[in-house]
């Protein structure tokens, strides 16, 4: 237990009061130790030197000077560069990504003898679904599934994989980071 000097205002020594000034100004002292905060108030009322220190501490320029610069996040540079990067570059990149898909679609359409062939596949799917529905209620035989060409199947799988891969790239383009999303 420290001895309280009786001749000092508020029962606080100047040395101790000056240590406590920062937390008193911030309001931390009143929150953690209200009794000490009230003694500090009494001390400041009675001690001119400490009062001058207190006035300096509450002045805005002094407090701004006392603030420490925050440490920038590691992703700052990357985020700034992403923000200032022209949108046109990303737009062009988004379209050039789809060139392989365009080539695969052209091949599939050509392989199916044009758009008519594609339309016949679509109409065949609808009619097969109707037959399947009728089969489900016992009104028809199960539909006969057409034998698929290996090249066509390979092209369709390649198209699906390429489109999915490019979607994963597109989903990262212009997307805010996970931290930004959480903050939002």
């Amino acid at each position, binding site marked *: 237990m420290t001895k309280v000097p009786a001749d000092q205002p508020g029962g606080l020594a100047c040395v101790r009061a000056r240590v406590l000034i920062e937390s008193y100004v911030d309001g931390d002292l009143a929150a953690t130790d209200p009794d000490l905060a009230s003694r500090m108030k009494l001390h400041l009322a009675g001690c001119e030197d400490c009062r001058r220190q207190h006035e300096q501490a509450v002045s805005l320029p002094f407090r701004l000077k006392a603030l420490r610069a925050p440490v920038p996040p590691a992703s700052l540079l990357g985020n700034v560069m*992403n*923000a200032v*990067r022209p*949108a*046109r570059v*990303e*737009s062009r990149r*988004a*379209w050039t*990504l*789809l060139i392989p*898909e365009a080539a695969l*679609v052209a091949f599939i359409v050509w392989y199916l003898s044009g758009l008519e062939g594609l339309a016949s*596949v679509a109409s*065949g*799917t609808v009619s*097969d*679904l109707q037959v*399947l529905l009728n089969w489900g209620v016992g009104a028809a035989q*199960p*539909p006969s*599934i*057409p034998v*698929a060409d290996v090249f066509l*199947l390979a092209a*369709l*799988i390649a*198209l*699906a994989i390429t*489109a*999915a891969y*490019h*979607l*994963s790239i*597109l*989903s990262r*383009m*212009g*997307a*805010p980071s*996970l931290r930004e*999303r*959480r903050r*939002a």
Partner: protein
Amino acid sequence: MSETVQPSGSTRWRWVIAIAGLAIIGVLLALADIALNAPWLGPMSDVVVGPPVAVSPLKERLPGSDRFERTRSVQTFTFISPFRPRGPISPLQGLRALLSNGAALIFIALAVLVVFPNQARTAVQRLEGSGGPVIAIAAGVATALLVIAALLLLRFTLIFLVLVPVLAAVVVAIALFGIACVALALGRLMQTRLRFGAAHPLVAALAGALLVFDLALIPYAGIVALAVVTIAGLGIVTLTRFGSASGWSFRDLNW
């Protein structure tokens, strides 16, 4: 709703005038579509704006249907199209297009935003980001191609053939959600660009949905505009994984 804004009197009137103006433009565009009877649109024209002729010939009417005929008011204001005269056309047909297809589009868009507000916000924020619309359209094209490839692959199997209508229904639902997000983004764009001031988000979405409806009714180009909006909507919903806050992340699988 904590973020509800209180629009001032002039702001409210601006929005009312804009929405009424968009509705009138929609009626006029529907009428133009009917009058042109655009052959390039084909059956789409009839689907969106209804039959081109106001009064059906007597021989096409069902027997005994005269009791239900309420076409007198329609027949009062008819005119003959100067472009492709096929029969009398009434301005009320344009209004019918707005009250049927337009109203359905608006109700679906608003319902989606009411039910999924957080998801819609994430998707719209992404759409409003740098290069958002172009990336969304590119992603929409990739998604459409992926779906077509998947549908064609499913067609060649007996077991998975039943998944074709399921996949088609999911794609339609995603496209509708996307169109609602695009409508909200267009409404917010009007809000900022035309300086309409603060308004309830559903008011902005209503204006945006009307704008989408008007775009779809532009003669000849409407179908292209609607396709672009749908593709962009499909893309933005895919990019944001149905507007989820975490997006496409495989972090949960990497434990």
